[in-house]
């Protein structure tokens, strides 16, 4: 099996696994909270309100540790330049500097620690959530929602884009409708999404689908329309039928453009996910942030944001790597 095939198989397995196996109830969060016991609020959720700086991690040690790590990384990048990618080292250096300054301003009480929880507190909070299993539930709830809606967006966007690009009459009727829908930001659909689809997962599927669908659709249309006439004529002169023109010329030549649309769609879907989870559900990273906000649990809010960041970067990296592999011929 070629590397590309392996990569594709792995991606399909992961995505399928996330969409099928981990599909728990929409209100998984509440169940977990009920099981955990301890002090609870009116919604039967445990209350946590400690914001102690350096309860487990000493801020001074933390800052020194980060500084040492940065120095080591810089030294490594100079000594083993072949193995350590320089842009990555530079990126990590600037992130490290921000983290150090951030920790220091809170440690020296230059800003209120509730308004800007320091990295150590965020780490402790996230650690605690992870240990109790909340964080995993929220992450999985979010991913499950995202992947389901994302695949729905691919499954609708690519075929529709193909039809719009190929059939003039169809496009004349359908394209304006999509253009009208496209200019409305997906969160603006939230009230109606809840009215139409009820409480739970479906409205957030709808919002994420809206966000991911349009980049995929538009890129598919432009990719298919950019198919070169000479390629179509080439396959015809080789004995290709109309179907061969579609499957062996249009789709492969448009694939890089379509894939870029998929990557952009995933990014926008991820943004819409957090927005959609602020209402109508009881689990997910967006919900976790919203809930922590209500309790003025700012370290959890920030922690949720950090997790979202991490996953966003992670998926973007995967998509970029896959893209490079897929468009090897370009």
């Amino acid at each position, binding site marked *: 099996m070629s590397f590309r095939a392996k990569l594709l198989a792995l991606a399909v397995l992961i995505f399928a696994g996330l969409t099928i196996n981990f599909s728990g109830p929409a209100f998984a969060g509440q169940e977990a909270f009920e099981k955990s016991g301890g002090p609870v609020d009116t919604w039967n959720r445990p209350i946590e309100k400690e914001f102690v700086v350096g309860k487990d991690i000493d801020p001074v040690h933390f800052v020194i540790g980060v500084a040492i790590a940065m120095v080591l990384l810089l030294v490594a990048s100079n000594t083993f330049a072949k193995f350590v990618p320089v842009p990555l080292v530079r990126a990590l250096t600037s992130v490290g500097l921000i983290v150090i300054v951030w920790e220091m301003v809170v440690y020296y009480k230059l800003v209120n620690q509730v308004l800007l929880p320091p990295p150590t507190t965020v780490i402790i909070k996230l650690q605690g959530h992870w240990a109790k299993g909340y964080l995993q539930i929220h992450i999985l709830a979010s991913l499950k929602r995202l992947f389901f809606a994302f695949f729905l967006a691919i499954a609708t966007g690519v075929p529709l884009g193909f039809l719009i690009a190929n059939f003039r009459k169809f496009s004349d009727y359908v394209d304006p409708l999509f253009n009208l829908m496209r200019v409305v930001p997906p969160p603006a659909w939230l009230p109606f999404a809840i009215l139409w689809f009820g409480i739970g997962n479906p409205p957030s599927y709808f919002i994420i689908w809206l966000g991911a669908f349009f980049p995929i659709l538009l890129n598919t249309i432009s990719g298919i329309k950019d198919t*070169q006439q*000479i*390629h179509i*004529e*080439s*396959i*015809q*002169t*080789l*004995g*290709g039928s109309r179907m*061969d023109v579609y499957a*062996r*010329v249009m789709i*492969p*030549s448009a*694939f890089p453009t379509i894939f870029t649309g998929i990557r952009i769609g995933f990014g926008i879907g991820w943004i819409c996910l957090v927005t959609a989870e602020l209402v109508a559900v009881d689990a997910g990273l967006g919900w976790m942030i919203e809930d922590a906000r209500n309790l003025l649990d700012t370290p959890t809010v920030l922690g949720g944001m950090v997790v979202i960041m991490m996953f966003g970067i992670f998926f973007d990296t995967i998509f970029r790597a896959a893209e490079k592999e897929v468009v*090897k*011929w*370009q």
Partner: protein
Amino acid sequence: MAMRGETDNSFGPGSHVVEIKDVKKSFYVYVDEGQTVLSEKRRWFSRKKPGELVAIKSFTLDVDHGEFVALLGPSGCGKSTLLRILAGFETPTSGFVTFKGNAINGPDPQRAMVFQSERAVFPWLTVEGNIGLGPKLQGMGKKARKEAVAKTIELVELKGFERAYPKTLSGGMLQRVAVARAIVNHPELLLMDEPFGALDAQTRNHLQDHVVKIWQSIEQTIIFVTHDIEEAVYLANKVVVFTARPGEIKEVVSINLPHPRDRTSEEFIGLRNHCTRLIRDKHPEG
């Protein structure tokens, strides 16, 4: 003229592979204050009037099996249009074109075409994939396909580049891939539309020798469009010289020099000069 024999719609030994009879091709265009606009659409409220652009006025030619015909003429004389009609991409406005006795409708792998631009090679397939696509579409088995592809790759001297993607190849190599892709199906008729027009002189000479070699080895009919007089005289055994647009046959020059031809021989230069005069002068000698 190359008119030989009577019109015979049944294809048998002795009849022609291609018969072109009184073909006229015109395009419907819009004319804007004396300027011709090649467009099928007419904007609202525009002053453009519908007009007709005659690419080929009247064209009659028969091509026999195993012939190497060069269509030679100034650019815009309709020679490419005629080739596209033979390939099945365009239909003549009037007159008829037959291939092995049957009217041409639509493209067919038996009439393979090599395009002018090397961009016609599919960039998402490797050299092997490009050449193997034709047999695949014909439903050839995997093993037979592999053999045919390997044989063709050897013929065009691309060995070692089987797995390469087109972006890594030079223009000359790409055109060889295009030729290989066309001949792997063993078409009865090979149509070539200025395939070496965009290449440098040295590569072009090299590829011309390739084409002669291929033509001699698989014995098929080739119709080759070019505006390069020397190329036409070097390759073909029948050079059809076009007039300027609207295209008509000015003269059919038979070239009976054996291959490989010597570009510096007296006969070659004589024929070349004859063709040059035909193209340049409105009234050739006599």
